């Protein structure tokens, strides 16, 4: 790039982009935070790291390992890895396997989508796969049911490649100013013909499934040990892709805990001969009242006896985005 071109690019960044910090709209783009640990996903659904979720549609055989991995390009320490454990024999028309990250509508107001001054966005990421070919990527505006799609090529197997994509401005359909899903970035890993039979939707329009992955010619589910890795995901306002905005682990963890967190305990009282109530408070305010699952059985010691659950049993009876009240059953002692 010539000096004149560099200066022009800087000028574009200053006038149209965000100059300073908090440029990256994506949370956990460096894949630092993994609160759930490695997942052996029998059906392909699950989070390899926080804020990035694998989702399947109509698959019946696929088994994958979803994990945080230490393989990463220079300047990064982590990536997410998706590795095929059991193949999906044949790819039916209605089957898809995708990785997705979602952004809240209220965090996207600076994009000015749906107005005459709507902004272009720049998406940058590092990707590596054992399977070369063309992969599809979709930007989905959930508030308005509109999408735009792209293709990127992995030309060399098992090698980190940096990809930059310009997401065009959209003067139709504003993001709501609320805590709902505004924008989803969707990386296709396999797509049946229901999603590839059209023409790539390269401009914003109402979502048409057949156009979302047109040109995608890779099926990573076809062979055991096929893998696909991602890190350094950055989405920023403006048409200039700037270097990745590294944030501390603590900052990223706090942002991730708005969507998922692990609580160890809370105030406990006995509710019945076989149950307790517990009131854990959250670290920060969550996006919505969260679903609750239980990892392992509880043991409550009242200084006289041990009371242990025979099996996990947890039910929400009150709560909001700041804390929750649950009843836990199946105790005996």
């Amino acid at each position, binding site marked *: 790039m010539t000096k004149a071109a560099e200066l022009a690019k800087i000028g574009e960044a200053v006038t149209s982009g965000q100059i300073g910090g908090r440029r990256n709209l994506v949370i956990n783009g460096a894949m630092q935070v993994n609160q759930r640990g490695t997942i052996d996903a029998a059906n392909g659904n699950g989070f390899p790291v926080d804020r990035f979720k694998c989702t399947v549609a109509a698959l019946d055989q696929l088994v994958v390992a979803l994990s945080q991995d230490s393989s990463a390009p220079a300047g990064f320490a982590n990536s997410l890895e998706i590795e095929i454990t059991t193949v999906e024999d044949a790819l039916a028309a209605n089957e898809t396997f995708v990785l997705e990250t979602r952004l809240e509508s209220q965090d996207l107001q600076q994009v000015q989508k749906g107005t005459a001054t709507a902004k272009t966005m720049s998406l940058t990421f590092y990707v590596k796969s054992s399977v070369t070919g063309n992969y599809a990527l979709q930007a989905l505006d959930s508030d308005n049911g509109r999408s735009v799609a792209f293709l990127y090529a992995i030309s060399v197997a098992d090698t980190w490649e940096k990809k930059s994509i310009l997401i065009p401005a959209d003067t139709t359909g504003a993001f709501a100013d609320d805590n709902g899903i505004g924008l989803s970035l969707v990386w296709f890993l396999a797509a049946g013909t229901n999603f590839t039979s059209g023409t790539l939707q390269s401009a914003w329009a109402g979502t048409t499934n057949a156009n979302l992955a047109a040109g995608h010619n890779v099926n990573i589910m076809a062979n055991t040990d096929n893998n696909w890795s991602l890190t350094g995901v950055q989405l920023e306002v403006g048409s200039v892709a700037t270097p990745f905005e590294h944030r501390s682990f603590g900052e990223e963890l706090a942002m991730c805990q708005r969507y998922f967190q692990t609580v160890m305990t809370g105030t406990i009282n006995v509710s019945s001969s076989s149950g307790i109530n517990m009131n854990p408070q959250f670290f920060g305010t969550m996006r919505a*009242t*969260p*679903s609750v*699952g*239980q990892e392992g059985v509880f043991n409550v010691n009242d200084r006289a006896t041990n009371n242990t659950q025979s099996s996990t049993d947890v039910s929400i009876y009150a709560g909001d985005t700041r804390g929750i009240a649950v009843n836990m059953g199946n105790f005996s002692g």
Partner: protein
Amino acid sequence: MNITNAKYFQDNGKNCSINCTIDGQELSVPLDPANTDYQAILEWAAIDGNSIEAAD
């Protein structure tokens, strides 16, 4: 998202949450319209043959 069962949980005679299995994981899901699991359960329940069981 694969939902295989769903049943209301009551406290003091009022539905408070839904106990369900989503993608093989047992969860208690609040009746919060902003909760994406709750949104998915409502979509699942709208399909013929699926329903949220009443609480015990």
